[in-house]
């Protein structure tokens, strides 16, 4: 893969995009997981699929949109879905998680209709579902790069506020944090990161890249900063190992990336178990 990397532009696109999402997906994933909102990622990835389907349908019916990259329509749908989730969460104050199945099922429902209007599944759609090492073009790599820079800058600027809001919303309010605005900013970032990641890991597995590395990091870390650091390390490892094996085994990268992440998770669980047992033995002797 190393030689081919310099030879083929598509491999460079996939690898660079992979490295970028390996960073931002777990970074935002930490905030999602600690707020127990893991399913938000699933809801938004499905609404992204609806956007992709809408774009594929338009491509068939309207000649003017022949060379639109469906990813951008996916982003538009994802961001719209994110804003809708925030609104619904306010409407159902005591059942905040209800917003997620509403958006999720709405996304799939509309998606199915659009897909069959566009004459069903084709190979394109398959690569959106499970990821692809060949689907990322230069332009969308640059888009993902800009999104990465924006996400990192915003997380650094609002780190305090994001932390307070995740830990204790009431305390955030009495600290003068504008919860509404920060929530909105955050969920829009999540929507963009999901639409970006989709090209490499695929819609069905995007949420795994946001949550599995965090699940592994939670086993090992005491502090919030450490959780972020480890999550990113696990995310990057999953993406790199996953892309490499995907290329060599000729299987979609979504599968190999997620299986690597699961392997890492199992390893951390076993490591934690073993170190606890050693500790107990050490105490006893």
């Amino acid at each position, binding site marked *: 893969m190393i030689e081919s990397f310099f030879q083929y532009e598509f491999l460079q696109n996939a690898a660079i995009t992979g490295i970028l999402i390996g960073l931002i997906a777990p970074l935002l994933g930490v905030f999602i997981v600690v707020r127990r909102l893991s399913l938000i990622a699933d809801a938004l990835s499905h609404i992204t699929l609806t956007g992709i389907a809408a774009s594929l349908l338009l491509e068939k019916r309207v000649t003017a949109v022949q060379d639109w990259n469906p990813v951008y329509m996916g982003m538009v749908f994802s961001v719209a879905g994110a804003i809708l989730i925030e609104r619904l969460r306010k409407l159902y104050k005591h059942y905040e998680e209800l917003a997620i199945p509403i958006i999720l099922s709405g996304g799939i429902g509309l998606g199915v209709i659009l897909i069959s209007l566009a004459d069903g599944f084709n190979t394109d759609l398959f690569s959106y579902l499970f990821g692809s090492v060949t689907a990322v073009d230069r332009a969308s790599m640059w888009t993902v790069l800009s999104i990465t820079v924006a996400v990192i800058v915003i997380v650094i600027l609002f780190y305090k506020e994001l932390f307070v809001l995740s830990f204790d919303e*009431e305390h955030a309010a*009495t600290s003068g944090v504008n919860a509404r605005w920060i929530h909105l900013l955050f969920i829009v970032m999540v929507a963009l990161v999901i639409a970006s990641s989709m090209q490499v890991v695929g819609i069905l597995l995007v949420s795994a890249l946001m949550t599995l590395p965090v699940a592994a*990091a939670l086993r090992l870390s005491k*502090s919030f900063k450490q959780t972020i650091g480890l999550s990113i390390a696990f995310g990057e490892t999953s993406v790199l190992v996953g892309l490499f094996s995907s290329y060599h085994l000729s299987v979609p990268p979504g599968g190999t990336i997620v299986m690597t992440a699961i392997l890492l998770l199992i390893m951390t669980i076993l490591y934690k178990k073993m170190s606890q047992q050693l500790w107990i033995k050490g105490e006893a002797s």
Partner: protein
Amino acid sequence: MNNYPIVEMDHVSFKYEKETVVQDVSLTIDQGQFLGLVGPNGSGKSTLIKLMLGLEKQTKGKIRLFGQPIKQFKDWKEIGFVSQKANSFNSGFPATVLEVVKAGLVSKIGTFKFFNKKHKEKALSALKTVGMEAYAHSNIGDLSGGQQQRVFIARALVSDPSLLILDEPTVGVDSKHVTEFYNLLGRLNKEEGITLLMVTHDIGTITDHATHVICMNKTVHFHGASEEYDEFNEQDLNRLYGHSVQQLTHNHDHHEVYHND
């Protein structure tokens, strides 16, 4: 010294859905007071505090904090708050005690500015005040309930507030630390001039320490100096609690309200 009251409530009423929980409450808290807020379960104490902090919006009346209408109030670093539900955070949350206490500085630091070394030292010294400095690097979820409560008190103290609001802060704290805690409150109040508002069910102890007492059940039944409250006799308490109440005197001169249905 400023000449406006720290908290001013003017004919404030509030209802969740339909039921009125706070009815026509007017009160002022002046700088330097140590105010105990007592009343039976469900009497609206926590709700009154939420109204004061703008966490719920009153259905009627006006509230001013530090002389400003609550909606315009921005100076949150002046207020430290320990909620009754402080302990109900996600106990698997990956944060150290130090990170939690540093979060108490968010209002002081302000937007677009970062935590630095000075903030870390401030947080450590707040932890020292509550005797929890040894746990600075422990995970917050690994502490006992009483220890967590002390960490939340440190978080409320870290921004050097001039008003400290505590909703049943000593629940789950052992008696040694409760005594220490009241001594600490006394010091903060007398030496640093911090205004204190504390909700408690421990009527005996609060009247020993507080300068003023408010007794409420939807509306304010008593508001005055603690000495006068001692004379607010058994009959009044019975009426307020809605059933027979006995003042029990423990061997260390410690009264508690005892419900007898």
